[in-house]
């Protein structure tokens, strides 16, 4: 069968066309993936290279077997094994502290924002309060301001109150900063839940708070997840507020610790990269776990503010 006759058969021609099209599609998708994942991949590769691999020109692209020495040093190391001696035990300890601090801050902010936000969001959804809409609008506007705008007066106030260099301060500031949006998400969730159920509970003798706790909140669980994931990620990734309001190495959050790290130990490529990967893991895990809810809160962010 000659080539021409092969292709002149319409069905074969069409499937060849389809094949070509899906090949093009594949190449394009690969391009998108390379754009999105390429930079991250390089960070991961650097984090599992040995120090020798990292100092080659051009670099060793696929270090095999991957070495976990940097992760081990960051999580358990004492600093003594590092060859050039620039890394003190203190640096490694400070990193571990910073991981812990970030957890405290992120969990604190999530709980705080959910607690306050659920109460307020519920009230905004259920009571015909005066100035309700305007207030939410105002809060959302304030929240759209870059944090840097608020930082000077907050710093002055906190330093006068003697609240600098405390995780508590970071937690309440971030809670306040993310509360309006959390409130907004929860309010629209509560609005979507029919009132009948909690009214039935109230007829049966629940007071409003109990009805909220036992009837409405369980129904609003997806909304709570969406808002909670949002709050956790935003506060884990927060930079400016922890940077300004903490100063000692044991109070830094991990984002700030990494910035300090880059400043002090720029040539510790592998260790820095491993630190970066570790700092990205918790929000990443959360995103994988709660992907559905996360996308819900993101599109809420896009379409509702």
């Amino acid at each position, binding site marked *: 069968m000659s080539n021409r006759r092969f292709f002149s058969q319409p069905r074969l021609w069409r499937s060849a066309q389809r094949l070509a099209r899906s090949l093009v599609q594949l190449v394009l998708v690969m391009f998108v993936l390379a754009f999105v994942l390429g930079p991250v991949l390089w960070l991961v590769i650097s984090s599992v290279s040995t120090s020798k691999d990292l100092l080659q*020109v051009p*670099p060793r692209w696929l270090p095999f077997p991957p070495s976990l020495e940097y992760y081990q040093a960051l999580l358990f190391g004492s600093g003594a094994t590092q060859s050039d001696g620039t890394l003190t035990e203190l640096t490694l300890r400070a990193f571990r502290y910073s991981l812990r601090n970030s957890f405290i801050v992120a969990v604190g902010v999530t709980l705080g924002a959910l607690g306050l936000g659920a109460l307020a969001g519920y009230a905004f959804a*259920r*009571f015909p309060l005066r100035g309700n809409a305007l207030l939410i609008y105002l809060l959302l*506007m304030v929240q*759209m*301001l870059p944090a840097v705008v608020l930082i*000077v007066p907050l710093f002055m106030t906190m330093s006068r109150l003697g609240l600098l260099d405390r995780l508590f301060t970071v937690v309440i500031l971030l809670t306040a900063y993310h509360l309006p949006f959390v409130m907004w998400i929860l309010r629209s969730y509560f609005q979507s839940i029919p*009132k009948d159920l909690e009214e039935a509970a109230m007829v049966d003798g629940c007071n409003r708070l109990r009805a909220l706790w036992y009837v409405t909140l369980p129904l609003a669980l997806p909304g709570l997840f969406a808002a909670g994931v949002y709050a956790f990620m935003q506060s884990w990734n927060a930079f400016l507020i922890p940077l300004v309001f903490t100063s000692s190495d044991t109070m830094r959050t991990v984002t700030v610790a990494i*910035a300090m790290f880059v400043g002090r130990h720029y040539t510790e490529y592998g260790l820095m990269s491993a630190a970066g990967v570790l700092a990205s893991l918790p929000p990443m895990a959360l995103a994988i776990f709660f992907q559905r809810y996360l996308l819900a809160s993101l599109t809420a962010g896009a379409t509702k503010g």
Partner: protein
Amino acid sequence: MSTFILLQTVSKPWGRRKRLRTANRVGYLMILPALLVVFGLLLYPLLYSLLISFYDLHVRAPWKGWEFVGFGNYFDVLTDREVHHSLGRTLFLAGVGIGLGLPLSLAFAMILNQPFPLRGLVRGLLIIPWIIPGSVQGLLWSRILEPYGYGALNGLLIQFGWIEKPVPWLLEPMRALFLVAIANLWSTVPMMTLLYLAGLQGIPQELYEAAKVDGAGRWARFQFITLPFLAPVTLINLILKTIDAFALFDLVFVLTGGGPARATEVIGYHLYTRAFTRLEYGYASALAWVIAVMTTLLALFYNRLTRPERLNQ
């Protein structure tokens, strides 16, 4: 309203108004904690900084006390060349984000809107750059743009023989600013792509079929159906991108520290250095208000676009 209708039937008729008021009181009580936190930590500082912006605080010479300077700080801010430059850089970042970012994310969305295996997974991966903390992004790009040949960019170019000696990418001012813009683009384009994908899903398929029947080609369909339908998303992306540029801080802090020679000192970073390196609180507060007004105008515009009727209920 059904709550209150129900309450009315449960309670005695004459008790209705009182009932309503107590119900509302519960509502106000529930809002109170959130309001205290937000007013205390967002609105109060905002007003406090308005006050400060009219004073020279003499932070370095506290014995002089606060000195009222009227609009002096605002005058300084508006005539300051450094402010003009950092504002220019910020707008440049926003411009790159829009000029390159919008077409790129639209293209990405068109690509990912076609059916292909594992499409859900690939779309899910799009949020990765957004998840990575800004300071880690700075670290990541400093690993890529590393000047000695150990980084990915120099390494790749040397590997393929396009350059012989490693290039110190972040040493030249304009190039450094452009690369910061690219680094920022990396984390924002996937987000914009997701928004575009959501927008694409809202386009009724019948339109495409009708257009096809009428003989419209691929490009015509894109131009006359897809683009107009995506216009609101484009506008949202545009405004969010601009607000983003005003808020950019951590990436710059880690990647370039504002350098070289202040070439990457965007407006937020400039404010930070004025406040915490030079301790000019009054000046910084005035600048903060200028930034606040600019972003609020953008945000107002944004809210108007996205939320026309919901709040008027």
